[in-house]
């Protein structure tokens, strides 16, 4: 909708309205900023949730950024991958749909299958006592559930990977990567060596879905939750 055309026939122009809106915006901010200070300090659980979200930026958000900004680099990966596939039978067997590259401080995954997994095909069968669902969010590519207890946060995210889509996992400053199998599916655990925080990413390769569980709860709880997801 064109802003100028939208005001044809009105007794004011877009410029005049913009000026008034600018005044309103400034007044709004001034009013909010001049409000009395909060009578509480944000809780530790809140801080942890915000920090987890920021770290999630490094996974979820990056997937799309990478695709747009480094299409050329992705093309190089595809060419290299195709060459490996064409010349090496073992490589072809090993990397049917997923390519995983482990760097010293991050891991890059690339999915070569077709998109179209069902984000609702999974249900979470176990959430420990004391946790409650505080946010459920969904878009075309992902479904997110955030559970919070008094002292821990669990973020479960289902990501639908499209063809040639890639996902980068950038760990904490000092993390340990280990391979696992959850309900018959390959999984990677990223454990922060300096805290209780960890991320367990489970790869449903046939569906092109990644299930990420990010939490500062005990690692055993994360695995119990992961194994309950069917």
């Amino acid at each position, binding site marked *: *909708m064109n802003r100028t055309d939208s005001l044809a026939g009105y007794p004011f122009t877009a410029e005049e309205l913009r000026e008034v809106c600018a005044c*309103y915006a400034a007044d709004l901010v001034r009013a909010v900023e001049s409000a009395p200070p909060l009578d509480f300090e944000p809780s530790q659980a809140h801080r942890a*949730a915000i920090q987890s979200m920021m770290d999630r930026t490094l996974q979820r958000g990056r997937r799309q950024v990478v695709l747009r900004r480094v299409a050329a680099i992705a093309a190089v990966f595809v060419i290299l991958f195709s060459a490996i596939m064409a010349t090496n039978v073992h490589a072809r067997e090993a990397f049917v749909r997923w390519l995983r590259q482990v760097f010293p401080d*991050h891991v890059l995954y690339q999915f070569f299958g077709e998109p179209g997994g069902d984000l609702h095909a999974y249900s979470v069968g176990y959430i420990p006592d004391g946790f409650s669902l505080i946010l459920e969010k969904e878009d075309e590519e992902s479904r997110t559930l955030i559970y919070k207890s008094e002292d821990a946060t669990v973020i479960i995210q289902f990501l639908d990977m499209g063809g040639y889509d890639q996902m980068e996992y*950038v760990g904490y400053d000092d993390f340990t990567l280990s391979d696992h199998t959850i309900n018959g599916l390959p999984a990677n655990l990223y454990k922060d060596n300096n805290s209780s925080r960890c991320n367990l990413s489970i790869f449903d390769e046939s569906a092109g879905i990644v299930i990420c569980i990010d939490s500062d709860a005990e690692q055993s709880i994360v695995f119990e939750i992961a194994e309950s997801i069917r």
Partner: protein
Amino acid sequence: MLPGLLLLLKTDEERIQFARFFNDYESLMFKSVRQVVQSQEDCEDAVQNTCRYLIDRFDELFADGATPSANYIAMLAKNRARDLLRANSRNASANLDDYEDLASEPSEQESAMDLKTAFYTLPEHYQQVLTLFYYEDLSVREIADTLSLSVSAVKKLLQRSRDALRSRLLAEGGENA
């Protein structure tokens, strides 16, 4: 290896950018949501939802080092708090009817005003949608996301907001005619 390292650098820069932004605007977010919800838990949930919204749209809102305006953050946070109230009260998503309850049309006796005065007498959701469209230059789709409304609802809201503004401006003209 090089491509991976380049990606990592970018990622770290963006993480720092967002962390700085959040540090600068956390107080504004809390004070904004406090105008809608009262308990600490609700305030924190609303701020977290605001943060999640911003992170999900990081590429659009923080492109090339830009940051959203304080006005946008304040409006966004208040609307996330309203979403929370709605979710807590009746499991309903926002629709235009929710806003219509709050709408007010100028009475026949209401005198005409200049544009600024007329604008300031509009219901808050009219002021918000006009500001987001004509001042923040957001698209209808972006406004729909920000206010948790459908695109068609935003178009209707814009239309009604403009009409309400015109009604207030022309009231005096009608009386004088």
